[in-house]
């Protein structure tokens, strides 16, 4: 694991991608810090971070796009997967390298609230809580980006899909307001979701019986819930969509609230996507 961790971290700094990523991130945060906090004399650092959330989402794919796609393309995954290291450790080593890179930027940012404190009043608790939240949000997006990178051999495709997914999660909060909340529409949407899941299952397993089983069982379950307890469907789609809104959870942190649910949420997103990455690599061996 340490071998892969060291190799990845080194690769980011020999190929300049790491330096460019850190430079862009620090320039963006620096400009906002200067304009929002110093020029306008606002002591609240979380305002700065809130303003740049979207930009950070845009630059995360720069570092995640190559992490596994490049191994697939160069066939160097043959070296990793035939060496006496488990897939979990390979994925973990790579993830930790990405987190370290992102973390370096975050550690530098930690100096900014302290600078404000030196020359005036600043709420350090709120500032550092929002930095922690910001770091966790970035870490979640990195996990998502790494999973997407494992799906393809092309860095460009990985980057584009990552952008789309990340922007989608960003605007999810606004999207949920547009979705219908009445029982019948929710039932229909759930039915469509079940169909989509069966289609994906069919593409992965190529077994008609399994696909049909999932489809029939899923649709039946949806129908049963609708007729027995229709109130369960009230606002269900909005709740489900809310799970994907990674940015939403960050708002608690930026208010200075250390919310256990948000913390658990981020950690679970990271865990789920690391797990999916491991599964994806294992799956590739079987196809």
């Amino acid at each position, binding site marked *: 694991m340490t071998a892969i961790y*060291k190799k990845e971290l080194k690769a980011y700094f020999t190929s300049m991608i790491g330096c460019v990523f850190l430079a862009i991130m620090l320039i963006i945060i620096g400009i906002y810090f200067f304009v929002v906090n110093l020029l306008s004399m606002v002591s609240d650092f979380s305002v700065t971070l809130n303003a740049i959330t979207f930009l950070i989402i845009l630059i995360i794919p720069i570092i995640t796009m190559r992490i596994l796609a490049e191994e697939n393309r*160069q066939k160097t995954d043959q070296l990793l997967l*035939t060496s*006496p290291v*488990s897939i979990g450790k390979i994925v973990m080593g790579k993830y930790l390298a990405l987190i370290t890179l992102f973390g370096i930027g975050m550690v530098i940012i930690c100096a900014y609230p302290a600078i404000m404190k030196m020359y005036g009043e600043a709420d350090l608790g709120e500032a550092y809580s929002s930095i922690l939240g910001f770091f966790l949000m970035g870490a979640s997006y990195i996990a998502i980006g790494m999973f997407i990178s494992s799906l393809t051999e092309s860095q460009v495709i990985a980057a584009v899909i990552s952008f789309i997914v990340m922007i989608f999660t960003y605007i999810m909060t606004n999207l949920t307001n547009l979705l219908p909340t009445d029982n019948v529409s929710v039932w229909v949407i759930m039915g469509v979701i079940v169909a989509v899941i069966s289609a994906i299952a069919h593409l992965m397993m190529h077994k008609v019986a399994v696909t049909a089983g999932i489809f029939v069982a899923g649709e039946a379950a949806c129908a049963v819930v609708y007729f027995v307890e229709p109130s369960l469907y009230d606002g269900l789609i909005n709740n489900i969509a809310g799970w994907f809104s990674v940015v939403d959870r960050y708002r608690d942190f930026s208010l200075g609230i250390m919310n256990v649910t948000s913390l658990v949420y981020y950690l679970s997103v990271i865990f789920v996507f690391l797990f999916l990455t491991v599964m994806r690599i294992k799956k590739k061996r079987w196809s």
Partner: protein
Amino acid sequence: MIEVRNLVKDYYGHVAVNDLSFTVDDGEVVGFLGPNGAGKSTTMNIITGYISATSGQAIVNGFDVFEEPEKAKKSIGYLPEQPPLYPDMKVKEYLNFVAELKKVKKSEKAKMIKDIMQLTKIEDVSGRLIKYLSKGYKQRVGLAGAIIGYPEVLILDEPTVGLDPNQIIEIRELIKSLSTKHTILLSSHIMQEVSAVCDKIIIINNGELVAYDTPARIAKVMEESRELIVTVKAGEASVKRIIATLDGIREIEYSAGDNEDETRINIKTEDNCDIREALFFAMANEGLPIIEMKQHEVTLEEIFLALTKGGSDQNVRRKTIDKLNRGEVDE
């Protein structure tokens, strides 16, 4: 030791490897031969744990690759068809990474990398970026990576492909020198290479085992098709009369020669029977001049073609397999 039992790999209807079983004993060098798409790389990828089998077992050094992957992989050094190199790394840096990946002890690492670079003759490029190396050097760096950690088993997928003749000889020598300490399974579609380096040959076609034996014994099976081609300046009738007096002839075929008064004879003799001398004197006594006499040796190439192609050689192929299966051939 490598043990492969009833290996099957099915890519959704396309069977790449079909019920393949063989054993490679400790210290042996075994050549894995087959035309493109025969399933060589697939089998090697399964043995090294890169892909999984649909069914069957692969056991390396006593560890099942699917059940105890880390222990099995620790005893394997693998050079895939395309060497798994990071173009942005320097050669030494790459070998260092491979050593760490294979959990080589820190105290031994520096010396091991130095020794292996010496062995594979890549010391002069140790500080260069891999992307700037020529194909031959890349191949050797890949081979060096496979040797790192001195695994008991080396699996080399077409180790000499893309090299110039000098480099091929060098790599072949290297493989020979490695064979004293390692069990080696190497794939190739070049016959000379395999017969020069290997103790045994596995021939597969369409994912199935066609033959598994020493190069000499496989050649021996084919010896029965060794032919003597003779052209005599005489009519067919007189030639027939003289040939009838000779012993040890199994099969004979007459045809017209290039000129009108010549007769060509294709003779297949019994095993270990050389009739050339007797034939010469018999003809000389009758005053019939032998214009041409040549022995057609069966090369491994022909065996290989005969075994894998089928078609017009289908009968030869079937006979050979039957013989091998019945164990009729002996040293």
